[in-house]
């Protein structure tokens, strides 16, 4: 299997190195295009005014926060079932980026909420579950950092993410339930107005840019992780960066 060839850190390291510039360039071009569409082309929202432009980074951030956790859960399954070390390294490489996007989603959401709803924070179902998602990221990173034995840290982290990912829908449902029970202060996020095509396009392009960015950064970070762990492996002395 040609795919399994790349599950060995020694062959994945150079492959990742070749892929990073491509994904990075793609992310940059998409971001430039998306920001241009979002900030200059897309018309002003007739209800929210200019401030709605925050959604061009808020929504992609929130999506990436959730999506990266999902990807981590998939890698966790691979790490536990097939015992592939690379999957666990990918989880470790993805987690900081996922956490960053989740935190950015909360931050931009708060800054969007103040002028729109009149308050920085609402215990809205989506914001609350995003906050809990941030806690899940924090828990994973704390666990992996606290365990010195890398093999154990990999498996423990994978199990935690798997348990967490099974809990994510339950958490989301429970928060939603809780939110409908306390209807008082909640404000509906779903806008009644239809989104203009350029707005939607801008948002999707920005989401794509964030996706490509995440891949580039995760690949770059996983290369560092591979080198840190395989410091004494024989193949390391043949890599390009060392020979030159």
């Amino acid at each position, binding site marked *: 299997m040609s795919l399994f060839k790349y599950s060995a850190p020694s062959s994945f390291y150079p492959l990742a190195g070749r892929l990073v510039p491509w994904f990075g360039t793609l992310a940059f071009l998409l971001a430039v295009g998306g920001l241009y569409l979002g900030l200059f082309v897309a018309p002003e929202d007739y209800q929210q*005014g200019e401030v709605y432009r925050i959604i061009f980074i808020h929504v992609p951030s929130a999506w990436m926060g959730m999506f990266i956790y999902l990807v981590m859960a998939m890698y966790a399954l691979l790490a536990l079932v097939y015992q592939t070390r690379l999957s666990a390294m990918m989880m470790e490489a993805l987690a900081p980026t996922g956490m960053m996007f989740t935190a*950015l989603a909360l931050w931009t959401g708060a*800054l969007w909420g103040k002028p729109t709803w009149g308050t920085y924070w609402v215990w809205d179902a989506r914001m609350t579950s995003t906050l809990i998602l941030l806690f899940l990221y924090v828990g994973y990173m704390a666990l992996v950092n606290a365990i010195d034995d890398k093999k154990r840290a990999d498996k423990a982290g994978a199990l935690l993410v798997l348990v967490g990912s099974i809990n994510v829908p339950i958490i989301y449902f429970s928060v939603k339930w809780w939110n409908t029970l306390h209807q008082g202060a909640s404000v509906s996020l779903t806008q009644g107005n239809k989104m203009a095509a350029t707005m939607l396009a801008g948002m999707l392009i920005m989401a794509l840019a964030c996706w490509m960015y995440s891949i580039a950064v995760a690949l*770059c970070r996983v290369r560092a992780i591979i080198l840190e762990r395989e410091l*004494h492996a024989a193949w390391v*002395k043949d890599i390009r*960066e060392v020979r030159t």
Partner: protein
Amino acid sequence: MDFFSMDGRGFYVWGSFGAFLAAIVIEIVLVRLRIHRAQKAVCDTLGSADPSGTENSDAGKGSK
């Protein structure tokens, strides 16, 4: 100037975009630092130890 004021809500809009940009720039810098440090560590171990010394027990695990 109109563009930067954003209906007078520039603080919120640019606070969001600024934080977003700052976070990404910081992450890129940190990741680049991390990989450079890792590569340097590899060079250091190769430079200091004699070639036979680098072939320790981890070497076999290099291919899965």
